[in-house]
């Protein structure tokens, strides 16, 4: 297992280098001048030149890249052009918030999606299957921002059960933190639950037709054992794949939801950075997200080998 993980990490290195080149190159292609954004009202050529010199924007692009990647390897992702904070510190502040949101959304999605998928596969063609599919389709079709606003209206304004905003970090005030995260996590979770339900259903449909499920029934096992022990465990590989990919998406894609519930997370940081031509921050964030995606994929690969003993030989 360790050798396998080591190999996967080695393979990931060229991927990360490619991502970094890509991120850096895209930044340079964006229209707009960060120095102008930084200088604000100031249009004095000398000041602009001074700023360019200070942030080494006059160097050739490959040199700029090497400077950046060299510093990044030492844990220095540069300084935000806008707030003058180190990028790593900014990410360190915002990332835990988004991770908390993503984990909560994922838990909600799994609690809803996997049992619904199993049930709808088991009761294929009945009204249960039909209802589950209809609900899933609605979950996929309803836009996050609309559902978010409706939930604020109903749960916060009308019923007053949960606060619409006022996020506190988990370490400072756990109850308030979870309370404020519950609605956004639900909004994100329902959309993901729908995807998860559809994948669980199709994986289970395949497995339920297999001969070893019939063998399990012939043994005289109860339906619950047949479903969970024999069928679901074999259907888990595609479910794990989808779950890890969805988690990666959640880290980067919660922008709208974070805006609606005014959560100071990663998504807000990205949007602000892009609008302000805050090169260093955007680069840092995209690099971090890329590395996170790769890490999730390696974890998923490791999970396959635990789930499927046949993969151990390969």
């Amino acid at each position, binding site marked *: 297992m360790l050798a396998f993980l080591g190999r996967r990490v080695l393979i990931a290195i060229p991927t990360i280098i490619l991502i970094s080149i890509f991120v850096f190159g895209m930044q340079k292609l964006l229209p707009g001048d960060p120095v102008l954004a930084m200088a604000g009202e100031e249009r004095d050529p000398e000041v602009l030149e001074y700023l360019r010199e200070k942030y080494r924007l006059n160097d050739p692009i490959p040199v700029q890249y090497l400077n950046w990647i060299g510093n990044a390897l030492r844990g220095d992702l540069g300084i935000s052009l806008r707030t003058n904070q180190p990028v790593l510190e900014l990410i360190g502040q915002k990332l835990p918030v988004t991770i908390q949101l993503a984990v909560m959304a994922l838990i909600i999605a799994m609690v809803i999606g996997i049992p619904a998928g199993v049930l709808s596969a088991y009761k294929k063609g009945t009204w249960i299957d039909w209802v589950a599919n209809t609900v899933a389709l609605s979950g996929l079709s309803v836009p996050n921002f609309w559902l978010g606003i409706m939930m604020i209206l109903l749960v916060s304004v009308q019923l007053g059960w949960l606060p619409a905003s006022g996020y506190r970090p988990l370490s400072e005030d756990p109850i308030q933190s979870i309370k404020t995260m519950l609605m956004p996590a639900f909004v994100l979770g329902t959309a993901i639950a729908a995807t998860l339900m559809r994948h669980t259903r199709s994986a289970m449909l395949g497995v339920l037709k*297999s*001969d*070893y499920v*019939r*063998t*399990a*029934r*012939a*043994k*005289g*096992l*109860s339906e619950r*054992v047949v479903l969970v022990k*024999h069928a679901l*465990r*074999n259907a888990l590989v595609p479910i794990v794949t989808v779950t890890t990919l969805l988690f990666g998406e959640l880290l980067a894609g919660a922008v709208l939801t974070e805006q609606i519930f005014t959560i100071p997370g990663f998504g807000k940081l990205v949007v602000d950075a892009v609008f302000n031509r805050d090169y260093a921050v955007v680069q840092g964030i995209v690099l971090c997200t890329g590395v996170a995606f790769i890490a999730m994929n390696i974890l998923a690969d490791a999970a396959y080998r635990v*789930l*499927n*003993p*046949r993969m151990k*030989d390969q």
Partner: protein
Amino acid sequence: MTAILKTRGLRREFLTKKPLFGAPTVVRAVDGVDLEIETGETFAIVGESGCGKSTLARLLVRLIDPTEGEVWYDGTDIAHVPAVKMRALRRDLQFVFQDPFSSLNPRMTVGALIEEPLHTHGWVDRSARKARVAELLTRVGLTPAHADRFPHEFSGGQRQRIGIARALATGPKVLIGDEPVSALDVSIQAQVINILEDLKDEFGLTLVIIAHDLAVIRHMADRVAVMYLGEIVEVASCEDLFAKPRHPYTEALLAAIPIASVGARKAETRLSGDLPNPIDPPSGCRFHTRCPYAEASCANERPALTDVGGREVACHRVHEVQLKGLAEDAPARSPAAQARFQMYRAASAEKQKPNP
């Protein structure tokens, strides 16, 4: 001898996918089967692909529910007992599946696969279960150390033996094999068949074997039922059936066995045409469309399975037609082959003569 498994008017219909308009079509995979399987015998069910023999096997242990009819085991109609009671009965009625590659859960070790039914059927003591698993593995020619491996690490023959060990774990009284050897190489088939026969004597099992390979059946079975399009057309002792078939379809099946003898003459009976569509089976005797002895009247009425001198046959003309079985001696050679053999003998006699 008493019957351990008995079916009465067993019928199973499958519905094809419902079209947008109109009713779905009905396929009668098993249509009105009455069988009595006696304690301790090896009972074979034979027929060509699609005749409903696998469906019948599954009905016998209620892996699927019948549309109509009864299956009696030990004074219980298992086709209609509640699911909980049926699960308890599975201890006595076990099944060996056709495909040893797909019928074992790939995520569980061999030990866990064999142990699971023990756990379900009341073996509480963990060490006793482990000992039983080791004993079963040894019994089917594997070693106790194999218990920690996964199914994919074994060959087809070994996997089928694992399947047999699994089926025997709870000490069943009836073992049903749905084509238990047809997925295996011929060299491995004999090995698995021998294991099944040994275990049958050792555990006092009643074996029900589904097969399309007549050589396997002739080797193993005490009695044979021949199936055609969801119906039983003949039931007889293995010896009688192979020596002297009484149903034209049985004769045709036997005639299809290749004879390993140079220049042997093939029997003339051959089936013409394909198996009719089971959605719309022929009227009257279902075999009349392909039967070389059929008369116009055969299309009118469905023949019932009737006792004909110690065996059961469903044919209107059973007393009129004389059928050929498998001759015990090598069949006569064709005139051309005889002439060639004579020339060969003369030539070799010439060679033997000492040179003058």
